[in-house]
């Protein structure tokens, strides 16, 4: 047993350190208190070893994210089944749950890995990406002449009678609002926010950050139609035999036959549709043929008015609605783009920086706390970050 300590790993291998942590007694406490006092330069490594041993080495989390969510769903269903007709909003609880849970797990990781330096990294421009936290905007629900503004994420429910109820996800505050009997209700969800919409036919729509959706108060026509003016939505369409559901976008329309799918139409990314379940038909504004999409297929729209189809891992495209993002060797620029939308961060990719080629693999919980998210991004892409005021600096790990 050597007395040469330099890294935290030396402590993790040291039986005296381990005994002190696992089963401290007076002698061990005194020994290590003296040791720390006599070796102040090793204190940081010791603290790191202490944190590491307790949270990572011996308390590894072995429950997968999907299992955790699934188990919660199961519990929720059972409780609901026994409830005295209490209406419980499962989905928003799940989202809240996932985010809250992530906060704890990620914070622990953060403590172990990063030195929070007070000074900024030297600007070696080849290895630096800078992000800016932008002013947060409110969600707007526009119906007829009226516009309702909300600071927090909301869930809008429209019933068959054309009455709307708005629930704020954060504090569960509900309110009934008057909406016009119009075909052009508009829900504007800025970057940094998300919303959910329950339509009178039972269809559920999840709106991702940076989305604008137009929809009628009642589905009176031959079809059920909504218009995605920009952004990304995930839908679970309620089947209705004689009325197909159509999502109009600027370049194409998606005809639905009772199903689950994701439509993405952001300005700075290619537009596409991913089908989870059921079947849909895609019709380009400029083309004449209807392309059919099968489950697990993604159709990407190109400028020429054509669609390219491929099979994808559906989870990566729809997990945002469950409060997390999933990546597989995805370039960090794409990762930061998606995170940027969710939290209203603008990342600067103008300069050609080597760091932009870094890839990221893993899951990122969309926690309420940006630090948690950035810690995970850094971990998954082997980078480091520092947040100061409203700017985030991402740079190469030493």
């Amino acid at each position, binding site marked *: *047993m050597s007395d040469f300590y330099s890294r935290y*790993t030396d402590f*993790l*291998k040291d*039986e005296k350190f*381990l*005994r002190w*942590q*696992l*089963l401290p*007694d007076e002698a061990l406490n005194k020994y290590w208190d003296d040791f720390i006092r006599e070796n102040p330069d090793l204190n940081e490594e010791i603290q790191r070893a202490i944190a*590491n041993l*307790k949270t*990572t*080495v*011996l*308390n*590894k*989390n*072995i*429950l997968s994210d999907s*299992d*955790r969510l699934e*188990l*919660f769903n*199961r*519990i*929720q269903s*059972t*409780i609901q089944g*026994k409830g005295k007709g*209490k209406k*419980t909003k499962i989905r928003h*609880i799940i989202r*809240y*749950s*996932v985010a*809250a*849970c992530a906060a*704890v*797990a990620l914070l622990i990781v953060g403590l172990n890995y990063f030195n929070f330096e007070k000074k900024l990294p030297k600007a070696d421009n080849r290895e630096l990406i800078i992000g800016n936290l932008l002013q947060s905007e409110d969600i707007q629900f526009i119906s007829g002449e009226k516009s309702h503004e909300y600071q927090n994420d909301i869930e809008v429910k429209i019933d068959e009678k054309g009455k709307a109820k708005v629930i704020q996800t954060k504090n*569960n505050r509900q309110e009934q609002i008057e909406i016009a009997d119009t075909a052009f209700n508009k829900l504007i969800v800025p970057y940094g926010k998300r919303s959910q919409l329950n339509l009178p036919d039972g269809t559920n729509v999840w709106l991702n950050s940076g989305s604008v959706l137009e929809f009628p108060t009642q589905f009176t026509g031959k079809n059920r139609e909504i218009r995605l003016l920009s952004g990304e939505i995930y839908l679970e369409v309620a089947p209705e035999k004689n009325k197909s559901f159509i999502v109009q976008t600027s370049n194409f329309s998606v005809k639905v036959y009772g199903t689950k799918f994701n439509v993405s139409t952001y300005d700075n990314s290619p537009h596409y549709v991913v089908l989870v379940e059921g079947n849909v038909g895609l019709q380009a504004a400029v083309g004449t043929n209807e392309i059919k999409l099968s489950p697990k297929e993604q159709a990407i729209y190109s400028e020429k008015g054509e669609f390219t189809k491929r099979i994808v891992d559906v989870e990566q495209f729809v997990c945002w609605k469950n409060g997390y993002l999933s990546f597989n060797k995805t370039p960090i620029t794409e990762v930061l783009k998606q995170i940027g939308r969710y939290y209203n961060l603008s990342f600067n990719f103008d300069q050609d920086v080597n760091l932009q080629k870094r890839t990221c693999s893993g899951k990122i919980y969309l926690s309420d706390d940006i630090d948690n998210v950035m810690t995970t991004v850094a971990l998954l892409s*082997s980078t480091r970050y520092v947040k100061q005021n409203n700017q985030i600096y991402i740079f190469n790990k030493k």
Partner: protein
Amino acid sequence: MKNTNDIADMYNRYVNDLFTYASYLGFPKEATMDAIHDVFCKLAEDEQLLNRVTNIKSYLFKSLKNRLYDIYRVQKRNLSLPDIKNPDELPFNITVSIEDDFIDAEEQAAIKSQIENMLQSLTARQREIVYLRYIQEYEYTQIAEILNISIHGCRKLLSKAMKTLREKYGSWIILLLLL
């Protein structure tokens, strides 16, 4: 409404630890998920419980252990599992794993082996009390409840564990003198 949000809150805070605890007690994933499900459903049914219980986490741990044992008793009849007469005789094994990119494979193996050896020299109950005290940071009263022993019993268990480790891994000086 308030009740279900409390459940969600508690689930998020404790499910990982509960799952880890169950696996250290030797239970497979399926049985653990069932047990956790049952524990939370029971919690949801009893509205007064949250007011009565002082420490929710230790209450959940104890409930989980009892529920797991109940499941074990039923399955024991179907599969051939070793005979465990009560929850206090369940095995306990802490998994040691190092997923640290900063440590190379050789060092990871060395650390893992050192810690595993030390833990293996303890009894199951001693390992469990180390887990409850050191990792979960429970008070003696809570540990006593979970392990179904007295507070004095806790102290005895801990000091016995300390003694074992001290004797096996402690001072070299004593060994040299004996030579």
